[in-house]
């Protein structure tokens, strides 16, 4: 049994509640350009008919996690429920995982601790029967979290600019159907 993300861009108002919740719950260090979850806003068409693509992304806990395969010290591990996490007791901050990860925001280098960091799906919350902080706080339901068996058949596996999921099998689906 594993988990995944379901993101519906048309519901996202870019409030960044997801970003803030992640930082607050996980005590992620601020002002060193490390954010485990990020809201990306990308212009996809020019004036006078501009268009914006909005995505809230964190780690996709891929079934075939290239980050884990790349790690020379085997610091990246997987729980029985599929959550991929970095063991900071082992990580040496070499950044190989970030080079191989296909999906922004990728593991990020914490220059203060000299370790790589990334979303671990708030497994401490999951173990207590709660949702990850980001999905819990989303006010419009744009970002959802749940069991992969429920999510994997919904929406699409990729959107424009998102690497084809066939390589690493990330646990995220996108609702692309409009209003």
């Amino acid at each position: 049994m594993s988990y995944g993300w379901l993101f519906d861009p048309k519901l996202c108002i870019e409030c960044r509640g997801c970003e803030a919740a992640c930082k607050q719950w996980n005590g992620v260090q601020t002002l060193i350009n490390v954010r485990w979850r990020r809201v990306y806003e990308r212009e996809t068409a020019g004036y006078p008919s501009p268009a914006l693509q909005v995505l809230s992304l964190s780690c996709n806990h891929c079934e075939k996690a290239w980050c884990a395969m790349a790690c020379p010290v085997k610091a990246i591990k997987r729980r029985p429920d599929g959550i991929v996490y970095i063991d900071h007791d082992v990580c040496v901050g070499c950044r190989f995982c970030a080079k191989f990860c296909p999906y922004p925001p990728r593991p990020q280098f914490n220059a203060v601790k000299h370790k790589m960091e990334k979303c671990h799906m708030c497994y401490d919350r999951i173990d207590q029967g709660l949702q990850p902080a980001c999905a819990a706080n989303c006010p419009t339901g744009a970002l959802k979290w749940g069991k992969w068996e429920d999510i994997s058949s919904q929406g699409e596996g990729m959107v424009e600019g998102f690497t084809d999921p066939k390589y690493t099998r990330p646990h995220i689906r996108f609702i692309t159907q409009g209003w």
Partner: protein
Amino acid sequence: MLTRRSMLRLAGGAGASLLSSTRLAKAFQEVFQAAELPAGMQAVATACGVCDSNCGVQAILQDGVLRFLGGLPGDADGGGGGLCAKGGSGIGLVYDPDRLKYPMKRTNPEKGIGVDPGWERITWTEALDTIAARFSNAISQYGAESLLVISRPAPDLWMRLLNALGVVNRVDHLDECFLTNRILQRYCTGPMTWAHDFANSKFILLFGWDLLAKAKLVFARGIVQAKANGAKVVCFNPQYSATARFADEWYPIRPGSDLAVALAMIHVLLEENLYNQQFVANYTNFPEYESAIRAHFAPYTPEWAELQSEVPAAAIRRLAREFGTMGPAIVPVHKKTLAANYTNATQLVHAIMILNILAGTVDRPGGRYEARKIDIPAVDAVYPRPAYPPKTGRRVDGKDRLPLVLEDGGGLFSTLADGILNKYPGMIQAAFFNQYTMLGFPSALRITQALKTIPFIAVYDFLPNDVAAMADIVLPGTTYLEVNDLVAREFSAKHPIVLARRAVVPPMFEAKSIGYVAIELGKRLVPDFFKTPDGSWINPGVLLDEKTRRAGIANSFAEFPASGIWERPEPFVPRTTFGTPSGKCQIYVPQFAAKGYDPLPVWKEKRERPNAEYPYYLLTYIPAFHRRNTTENNPILTEMLPVNVANINSALAKSLGIGEGDLVRLRSRAGSITLAAHLVETLRPDAVLVAHGYGQRSRLMRVAWGRGERDSDLIPDQTVEEMVAAGNFAGAAGIMEAVIAIERVQQSGSEE
């Protein structure tokens, strides 16, 4: 093999057992229940206080320390169980290491930007005694007009103090916010008709309204619901913002010309009789003034409006028809967005009121409606008081020249500097700032000059911002997470809903509530106004208990439902009379005519138009993760946009030889700032967009200090005479009136 048993869900709860139909399952339920929280943690329901959405919050504490702020389950009308970045980061405000902790006094008499005040810690007693003595001296020597209080008119205890002292110069920022909206609605549709039933709207017309981009959840979620229910959204905004993304049609309208489109749409609705005939005939004063109204709007054709606004006439006509025929239509107007932006806002908001009236959706499904509230008694109802002294004195902000503004009481930040420096130099002898910073004024440089002329300034706030740096006495204030209060929903309230805002942690250091300050100053200055009938001093906790009890919510505040939400579900009975002077929705406003104002909106240009010296429009916006005096020093929020930039349309930038990241100087008649350029597709090519809330000058705000520039340095303030001349009788501050020049200062990456 799929059996009944294998269809179970691991839902994190004790429910939905496959054995649920048997005694085994029941017995299981007697032993186990759903785990509520991680072990060792405690949840308290409260209400956010960062913005006026007042979303419910579930505060999670561990060993008494705030750990996480989540949305409040069951808060359907507010955050929907979620929280935006501002609310979710509130912990950073309470535990901000730069936070004001103790009362302090200045020992360096020199005041200015970047000048060290030479703070010395004092006791609350000394601080209050000093303030009371200075106020008392100022009043006795110079009269009550010499006191300037920069403050919202809340809470009631604080207003009791000000009124008891006879303060005439209480000034707030509402000319930059909803003053125009509040005045117009009082005469057109009735007070408090600013709740929005978006979920039932079928046509939503936005003139610059941008509350999704500001993440005001109570409004934003309504728009999302409306879209899900099949509503059409039309957005006029020179910027393609996060709100515009939700629109079915977006028009990069010429800044300041929304009024033309609104007038033309009214023209079409009247000409083609596409307004709600039944509503208009029965509930408005249209029948009395019909010929005057029709004649008035006759010249405002879509063709004319196209010339003003650059919105095609055919589109204006079609949209007006859709507005009149697609089902419940609404034109929201609120807060800073648009209403305060241009000096023709008075006329624009009047036109918007008329559109809502013609749509027949005032206090009807899908429209703007009057928030249903219960009567939560104010302090006057609980503790009677002597009569207030008459308010005599000159209005430093010139409100007295704008009778409708004076009647309302809100404003005026945009004329304050002129009042202090030019109109009434030396009149203000003592000032008190209650939770406002310098960044909130247009032309911050001018207001700084003005403040330097005031001999005594006391500041009450929670962060050591630029205004605190100019203070003689600084009082550490409590945040919304440290004080108890009742919060009545105002913007989404079809039946009364009240939230409890709870003190989830005790006040940090020596922070005190503004209610405490009111009582303590009251004891010293006007004791008869702060006594209970039995002769004891008013106690804020007892007062809150009385309010809770008399409102019929609970016997005491502590007994407010643990869920944090109290509701009185009652059917929504649409009004048949409205809170206007005539009891009808007023399209033509005779009260305006009686004062010599236009009783129907007329076309007026915005005050400042691009010209040879200043060829471009300056637009400003507030990022979704910032608000007023609470967020700029928060590292979680600051890193979402560490500095503000000059957003420029890429074609315009190219024509000026400006590349991504180049430093550009923006210059207006008010001042200049230098920012890095960021090239975008989401702006008109004659406009520059700058985020508000940057350029904090106080070094004591270690996260905020030095980041970016103040947009307000470019925004001219105004005189009340200019407002009168512009027909700006409902007091719009004109925040977006600035026009600017752009010049490249330095290429990005160069060594210059």
